[in-house]
């Protein structure tokens, strides 16, 4: 997996360029440059295949959330990692460029609470619709919600939204 850092840097001069520990090149852009950069990667640089997207929450770091998108070039047979950072503010959606991003953005919204502007259906994906909180945030406790038994329903009533259901 050789990395022609020059061509990426030339094509996208507005981004911060680097290579991760696994040898995959990454580019870091501001959220407002995201959609245009993704479009450029797809149309000019042949990164046409949608792979993955997720977020990382580093509680102590500013800005707190780092979104990372993975694309794959069928010509050069290599991956590209696209990053942007947010402190919880909405990020533009890239569903118009990659329709495959639809569920991935909903998953990040559901589990991290980051909203994507322009997403056709910004609703929860994994958790119940009336759930309170975003489980993959680092300040969301593990085991913080009560187990929902009939006998405890309405008795404990402090769960992360469980008492709202049913």
């Amino acid at each position, binding site marked *: *997996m050789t990395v022609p850092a020059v061509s990426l840097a030339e094509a996208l001069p507005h981004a911060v360029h680097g290579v*991760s*520990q*696994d040898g*995959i090149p990454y580019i870091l852009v501001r959220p407002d440059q995201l959609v245009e950069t993704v479009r450029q990667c797809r149309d000019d640089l042949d990164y*046409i*295949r*949608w*792979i*993955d997207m*997720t977020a*990382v*929450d*580093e509680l102590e770091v500013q800005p707190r959330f780092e979104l*990372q998108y*993975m694309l794959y070039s*069928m010509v050069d*047979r*290599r*991956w590209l*990692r696209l990053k942007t950072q947010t402190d919880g503010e909405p990020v533009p959606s890239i569903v118009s460029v*990659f*329709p*495959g991003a*639809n*569920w991935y953005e909903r998953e990040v919204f559901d*589990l991290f609470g980051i909203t994507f502007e322009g997403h056709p259906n910004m609703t*929860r*994906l*994994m*958790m*119940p619709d009336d759930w309170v909180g975003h*489980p*993959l945030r*680092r300040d*969301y406790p*593990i085991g913080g919600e009560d187990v929902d038994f009939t006998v405890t329903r309405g008795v404990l009533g402090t769960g992360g939204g469980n008492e709202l259901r049913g």
Partner: protein
Amino acid sequence: MAIETPRIRDTLHINMGPQHPSTHGVLRLELELDGEIVVSCKPIIGYLHTGIEKTFEAKTYLHGLTLTDRMDYLNPMGNNLAYCLSIEKLFECEITERATVGRVLLAELTRINSHLVFVGTAGLDLGASSVFLYCLREREKLQDLFEWLSGQRMMTSFIRPGGLASDFEPAWLLAVGAFLDEMPNRVDEYESLLTNNPLFKERMIGVGVLKADDAIAYGVTGPALRACGIPQDLRKTNPYLGYETYDFDAIVADAGDCYSRYKVRVAELRESVKIAKQALQRMPGGTVRTANRKVMPPPREELGTSMESLIHHFKLFTEGIRPPAGEAYVPVESPRGELGFYIVSDGSGKPVRVHERAPTFANVQAIPLMAEGGLVADLIAVIASMDPVMGEVDR
């Protein structure tokens, strides 16, 4: 006086699943039907969401390994492998020859295991129930082999960061050889029941066509992508574990329909047998555990004689392994497509973030593209041909 009302063509909204025998787990589809035609299809997931990615935050890397088995439960060792490759990338840890070849053997046996379930359930969903029994007969033999090897039939956790959990017994390798020798005849047997069966073909050919451009833009991978005519197999395009030195073909079909996806998987069964046989033949001697003491504990007999080994042993079992800070994503070709673990480490014994790039997640998202405009009965064939495992979609 008769009142004339305009006839309104009403659509019917219906839920398929989450508890439905053909949804392979707990997938729910919100269907809008016009008679028998599917007007719109909306997959609803999350019924199997157990917060595995959250659980990783509180586990050491070795504990986390046991969670990976439970994501794609038909491909446990493939998940172990992807997870271990990402961790080893962070360590830049070399693994031994025997462990590398052993991993190829195990990955291919697991692929056979998974594709056997596909062939069986695809037949079962379309009404050919006997092939399911034949497939499970062979799968049972494989599960017995896994139990012999690791003590577990499904959740083996056998591939560990730094190599394998234990060495292969010579008798086990012989038993695997015997299994692989009989396997091609068994595949012939399944094919004689399905491949040219006119009822099966009518249900599959031309049904649920996925266009190659859509597949790429939606991130569809694995046999579903190769059935659209795109030769994208990570074992060929971005080889890992020395796959480039094995003699096998990346199977491609071109119609993009359910039958192509079936044909690709059946042909891959034969290719996997080929690869596994080559791995058996070239199985080198030596150990299956890396010499890197930061990744794997020293052998038991060293503890009595070496102070350094004792310290490594103590540190590994009290704090776990500590990959250097950084991020890594090393994907493998699972039976369902590109599977990789994106691991972020801050240098401590517990990961900051473990995210699974699950092939089925992207594949299930693309089901409406294949289902809309078709018949309800075809939807069953579409789901069967995508071979979804909900454990890895919901994680």
